[in-house]
């Protein structure tokens, strides 16, 4: 059992080493197609579930989060559209409140994800 406990230390160190690089990297979306204002985001770890849920939407290419503004910038795949309902569900399922959706490019708005 002592071996198991020592082993757990090693697991912690290895996981840390493996995961620390992707932890630090966050893509930046300069020209978003859609900008969301999300309430309840108050720390970097909380944002992970939101980021993961939004990335599950097929038409989403990339997202970045401006924590201080509560702003989520969404870049869509080329010629893709995204439905407001799907965005709202992704935010709510992550445990937050969607305050506002702004479609910077109206052509990307749709009742369905395309």
């Amino acid at each position, binding site marked *: *059992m*002592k071996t*198991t*406990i020592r082993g*757990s*230390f090693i*697991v*912690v160190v290895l*996981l*840390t080493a493996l*995961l*620390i690089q*992707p*932890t*630090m990297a*966050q893509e*930046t979306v300069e020209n978003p197609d859609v900008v969301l*204002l999300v*309430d*309840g*985001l*108050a*720390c*970097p*770890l*909380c*944002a*992970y*579930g*939101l*980021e*993961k*849920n939004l990335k599950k939407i097929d038409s989403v290419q990339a997202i*970045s*989060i*401006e*924590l*201080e*503004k*509560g702003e989520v910038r969404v870049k869509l795949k080329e010629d893709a559209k995204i439905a407001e309902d799907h965005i709202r569900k992704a935010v*709510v*399922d*992550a*445990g*937050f*409140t969607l*305050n506002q959706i702004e479609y910077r490019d109206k052509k990307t708005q749709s009742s369905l994800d395309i």
Partner: protein
Amino acid sequence: MRGLPSASRAFRYFFVTTLLICAPQVNAQITTNTALPISAGGGMLRIQTKIIRSSGNQADADRQLTVVAVPFVVVYGVTRKLAAFGIVPLLDKRMESTSEGALGKRNVSGLADVRFFLRYTFVQKDSRGATLRIAPFAGTMIPTGSRDVADDMGTLPRPLQLGTGSWSPFAGVVLTRQTFAWQIDASFSYQYNPEAGGFRFGDEARLDLASKIRLLPRQLGGGLPNFFYANLESNLIWRGENEMNGVENLDSGGVIWYLDPGIQYVTRRMVFESAIQIPVIQDLNGSALKNDFIFVISVRIAY
């Protein structure tokens, strides 16, 4: 092997070992539960190591109990409001006793009692950069830990065993207020311990209060910066007297109040943290061993 604990005397050790190790918190702060969200379909893994040291003099013997605990915590978001928690603790308990120059040792290692519980977010008030949440939780301790471990001196006393042998339900409520700059959590819980094999551990109630302030970055700036926090937490724990065959043990149970300074480094996917739990007040019944400290270090990974 002189000076090793008798079964009745060893009742006392349990207070500062198993229940503290396996308390139901999953800890957005280091020793205190939280009501912060778990994404539906996502979750969190936490690997934690605790070193618990207790010592004292009983029956003319100096005793020292060291417990190394490694609880593995898995959290899963069932829905946006309901989260499931599982805690699988591995323990290594080592007791040394010195009497008239003779040293005695007893040691046990293995899987302790697993815990499972559900938390439901009952109140959620979000605003930009802040949230207020209240979440009741309830679950049970599952008797997965062995209660018949023996060494060359015979079967270990029940409180030194890895498991309690009982399904022990618990329930509580946690409140969290979080902003960019600070966070507070307050949690109250109660655990009922039924009798198992003629032995009943005392019930337990605990009140945990936790606070943390962001030290770095001083200005948030753009993007999603990593946060470095200073934490100060408090754990007030009461435990009733144990019973064997219906007879209360007057040397068991009592009250401990810990203050826990700590630090946390939070990234968008991981948390690294450490704290030391310092017993400020120990009003234990009879001549129980006093807790010297609990050291906690852990890492959490969102998935």
